[in-house]
């Protein structure tokens, strides 16, 4: 799994023009597809992937039966929430977890919507690319489901709405064609990547707590940020920027995402 920093990926994007970019880069995201646990499901009604060793998210995912026993984190880190937070810190923590779960729910539904359309088309490779990104989102939502319970955070009240909106956005852009779907992914993942990045900074700035769940949360946000930027790369590699009215489409979708973020932080 590539662990690139956000800064280097964005400069790369700024420099690369779409046509040269596609020639230079891999066809789609690297890494083998995840393996899913036989039971359990997430709040997006998706499977739960097994933990990948060495990733922060593995603290919240079931270990593979064949894998060597994972390095044990203290139960405090994964099962309790810090009680010594100021009201300001508490609010920040809750906003981060609430909005991220809502965002991952939306992302799952977007890819589900795109996949529903592409799976019926002739381009099986395209359906696979979308499936691969969707599988990544399943890990994200599975982890946030655990974090919501651990930190006792109220989920967004607009849960059903984000489900419908995400699916409609995914299916709608997929019906416009491959490039529009990829432009949607590009816009969404850019906003989400930036968002994770600012949350990592906010946590560093406002959280001088000793509670081990906070550094763990920060590592998870970093891991997910890098995952999202990989999705972003995949979209650009697949000609997202060659869609007609690319600037308009991505501006619209990005504005929609920012609006949804603003609402989900509070509601």
């Amino acid at each position, binding site marked *: 799994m590539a662990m690139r920093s956000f800064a280097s990926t964005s400069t790369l994007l700024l420099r690369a023009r779409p046509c040269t970019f596609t020639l230079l880069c891999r066809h789609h995201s690297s890494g083998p597809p995840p393996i899913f646990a036989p039971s359990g499901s*997430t*709040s997006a009604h998706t499977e739960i992937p097994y933990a990948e060793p060495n990733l922060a998210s593995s603290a919240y995912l079931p270990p593979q039966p064949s894998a060597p026993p994972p390095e044990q984190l203290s139960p405090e880190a994964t099962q309790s929430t810090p009680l010594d937070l100021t009201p300001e810190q508490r609010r920040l923590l809750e906003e981060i977890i609430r909005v991220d779960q809502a965002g991952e*729910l939306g992302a799952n539904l977007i890819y589900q919507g795109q996949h529903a359309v592409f799976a019926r088309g002739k381009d099986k490779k395209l359906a696979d690319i979308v499936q691969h990104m969707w599988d990544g989102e399943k890990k994200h939502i599975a982890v946030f*489901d655990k974090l*919501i*319970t651990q930190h*006792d955070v*109220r*989920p967004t*009240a607009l*849960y*059903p709405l984000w489900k419908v909106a995400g699916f409609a956005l995914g299916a709608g852009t997929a019906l416009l064609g491959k490039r529009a779907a990829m432009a949607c992914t590009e816009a969404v993942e850019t906003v989400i990547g930036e968002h994770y990045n600012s949350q990592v900074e906010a946590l560093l700035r406002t959280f001088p707590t000793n509670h081990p769940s906070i550094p763990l949360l920060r590592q998870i946000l970093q891991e997910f940020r890098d995952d999202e930027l990989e999705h972003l790369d995949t979209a650009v590699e697949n000609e997202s920027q060659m869609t007609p009215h690319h600037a308009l489409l991505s501006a619209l979708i990005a504005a929609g995402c920012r609006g949804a973020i603003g609402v989900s932080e509070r509601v």
Partner: protein
Amino acid sequence: MASSVPQQLLRLALPLIPKSGFTAHSLQLASLSLPAPHTPPAPGYTTHTLNGLFPSPPPLPYTSTHSLSREELKADAQGSSLETERVGPAMALVQEWLAEGRRDMVGRIREVGVRGEAGVREGLRQRVRYNEPVLGQLVQALALLGAPTTTALSSPSALLPFPSPAPHLSHVARIAHDLAKVSGDESQGADWYLSRARLGTIYGLAELHLLSPSNALTPSERVESTLELVDTLLERSRSMQKSVEGAGAFAEWVGKSWMGMGRSLGL
């Protein structure tokens, strides 16, 4: 842990409630047990001191029906106005008693070590029993919850001709949330809200039943019949929630129950 004088005072007053009620008088008596150097001379803290420790606006008619004269304003600022009976101290005592009720409920579930539906049932039973020693004063206590804590200047809702339902809703919602949390509820999204709506409705109806005038019964008989009602409600709402066609019936049940409770609260 060192706690503030108002906090200590509230805790000392809790055991006095069955005899002296949710009143400033209970707090006055409790002040005599404050550790040195805070112990006041007999007969304990004066009304003015208590009003200062637990501030609240002057009674409603006094603020809203006419604007204060210069003399009244001066008297009020000096804390020497004729109208010294304010709700602040009693209301603080009610809030502390409610918080203690939730701690007691949570402690019981942990002590028995049951989770899931069995944990919910144990917690609800404990919370219902917690009311028994103060059954006679309970209506007064819950009515106090609806008294305005703000003046019409800072919140126009203080002018409403009926008590605000928000504090009562939040008292029930907090019980429901603690029950869900401690019994290990991990529901996500809309289910998070549904499970809490169910528990809140059950406790709300149980409380209403407990308070309904039934002169023929002793307090412990009233508690017993309420515990039976809790079991019936748990059973009925669960079977409704489980069946697919029950979803609509469940929503209707929640809605109708709360309309009924609203009417009983005098709304």
